[in-house]
């Protein structure tokens, strides 16, 4: 495997999909038990990056094969494929995984949505009225139970810039965030902590007091661009920081595990043109 290098002075380049995946990976803490939903290549690749860099003792559960700590030969374009079970220490049954998740033994799950609101509610069911949708989306899988009990959720979207994804109110709430029409997580008796992070192709939000706050931003994005693309008002963290760049080790894992570039499917062609350079003078990315 080779890393794109610059003039032999330690400079290297990477693209937004790679930086995005690394940002997702860094939301995983070591020794966490982590799961991704199907149809989520960025989260899927991110889990393998974490397990091969800073979170070597995590428990990685593949999203549709329920394989535990596999070493996929490559990431295929479908989540239920034998390639994802390679060298798995064990394969959970469907019910073994979901039982663990609803009793509270899964620490983190990655969730996305066609719409996401300021409280971290997500919609993967339908845009427009449910009885006559404008767009019928695929559906939530296990989300409307998992979101209640998994300890932490990392939300993500690669379609923030479209202006249609981060909305004031979801047309339909499939998976619950911090505050719903019926009450807060506490009022509804949920045992999980809800959304902890929201990573987008423009920046990173956290959820102090349950509402999204902009914490970090990519260097080629302005705060005004984030505001223009976001359908809800949000606070900005004091000392808004740039997203930390990826390390060589993280990039190496991405390029080795995802040679087909399945992660890129989540981005528009225009976003994939975003290339970054890391070199002397831009700070340590180790």
């Amino acid at each position, binding site marked *: 495997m080779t890393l794109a290098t610059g003039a032999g002075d330690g400079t290297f380049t990477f693209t937004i999909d790679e930086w995005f995946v690394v940002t997702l990976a860094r939301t995983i803490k070591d020794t966490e038990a982590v799961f991704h939903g199907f149809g989520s290549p960025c989260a899927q690749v991110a889990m393998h990056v974490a397990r091969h860099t800073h979170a070597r003792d995590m428990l990685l559960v593949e999203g549709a094969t329920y394989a535990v700590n596999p070493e996929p030969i490559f990431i295929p374009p479908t989540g239920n494929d034998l390639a994802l079970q390679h060298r798995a220490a064990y394969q959970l049954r469907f019910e073994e995984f979901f039982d663990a998740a609803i009793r509270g033994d899964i620490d983190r799950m990655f969730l996305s949505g066609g719409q996401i609101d300021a409280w971290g509610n997500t919609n993967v069911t339908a845009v427009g009225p449910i009885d006559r*949708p404008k767009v019928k989306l695929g*559906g939530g899988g296990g989300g409307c*139970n998992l979101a209640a009990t998994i300890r932490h959720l990392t939300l993500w979207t690669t379609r923030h810039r479209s202006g249609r994804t981060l909305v004031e109110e979801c047309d339909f709430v499939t998976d619950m965030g911090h505050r719903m029409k019926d009450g807060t*997580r506490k009022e509804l008796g949920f045992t999980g902590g809800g959304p902890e992070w929201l990573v987008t192709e423009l920046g990173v939000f956290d959820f102090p007091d349950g509402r999204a706050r902009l914490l970090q931003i990519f260097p080629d994005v302005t705060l005004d661009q984030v505001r223009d693309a976001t359908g809800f008002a949000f606070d900005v963290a004091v000392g808004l920081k740039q997203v930390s760049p990826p390390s060589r080790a993280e990039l190496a894992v991405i390029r080795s595990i995802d040679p087909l570039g399945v992660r890129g499917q989540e981005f528009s062609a225009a976003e994939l043109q975003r290339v970054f350079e890391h070199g002397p003078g831009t700070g340590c990315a180790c």
Partner: protein
Amino acid sequence: MPFFMDPDKLVTLEQAATRVSDGDVVALGGGLSARLPMALVRELIRQGRRDLHLVGSAHGIDVDLLVAAGAVSICEESYVGFEQDLGLAPSYRRAAEGGDFRIAESCCITILTQLRAAEAGVPFLPVRGVKGSDIRSLHPEYAEITCPFTGELLIAVPALSPDVALIHASLGDRRGNLHFDKPYVLDERFASASKLVVATVERLASTEEVSDAGITVPAHLVAAVAEAPFGAHPTSCYPDYAYDRNHLREYVAAAATGKGATEYLERFVIGAQTEEGYRKLLGEESLDRLRGWKTSTQAWKELFA
């Protein structure tokens, strides 16, 4: 749920599909683009089955074809689509947007819980989630219940016993013992919760061979078994073959319009007349390519490139 004691349940695919009636609650085995019971799906369409109520977890072309054929009145799957790769399910989406079936979208865990209630013969079981989600609004049959021990408010979901479960397996014998590899998805639960299991197998084998491979679903739960090589195509049935991404991509492109979906059905389902006709249409070369995933990592990767 009832036990089926007949020592010989081998039937033709046509006979197997007649065990499904118009209006039935049908559980589809497999998941996403893996081990979907496609031979049975195609045969149900050929036989003109109507008014089906589909239940299950995350599915793809099985649901989409049945919807395209106008066979579905209620869809209670947790997801229908082709993931990030090929996107939304075109016929399912079009029919949902047109109000052609009732959207009763569910959750993998809720369906699992409902099947477990049926397996245990109890009328309901509780779930902790669903509260706060609009999924609840699609299910007037759910109820609130207060735990008599802790006082916690939970959602009670009723037992679900599908009229028939359709399962595709790698191996099976005449009695109906089935073997297939993980992930089993909901198939084991469907098998014991449903009133009837109708199975297809890649290859009919002796009881000894199936037993040596490991019995995933036992014969006493299975009412009928038919041999259907490439019965999961265009989805995968490992270790026999990988999924046919090219075929799925062509289907998704064709089904972007109602006319295209109808043309696909006319060519590959109705026009093919039988599964033998279907395999002939696909061609031996393309089927060999799918079987060739195991020859090298490169060959496997190329199937997905």
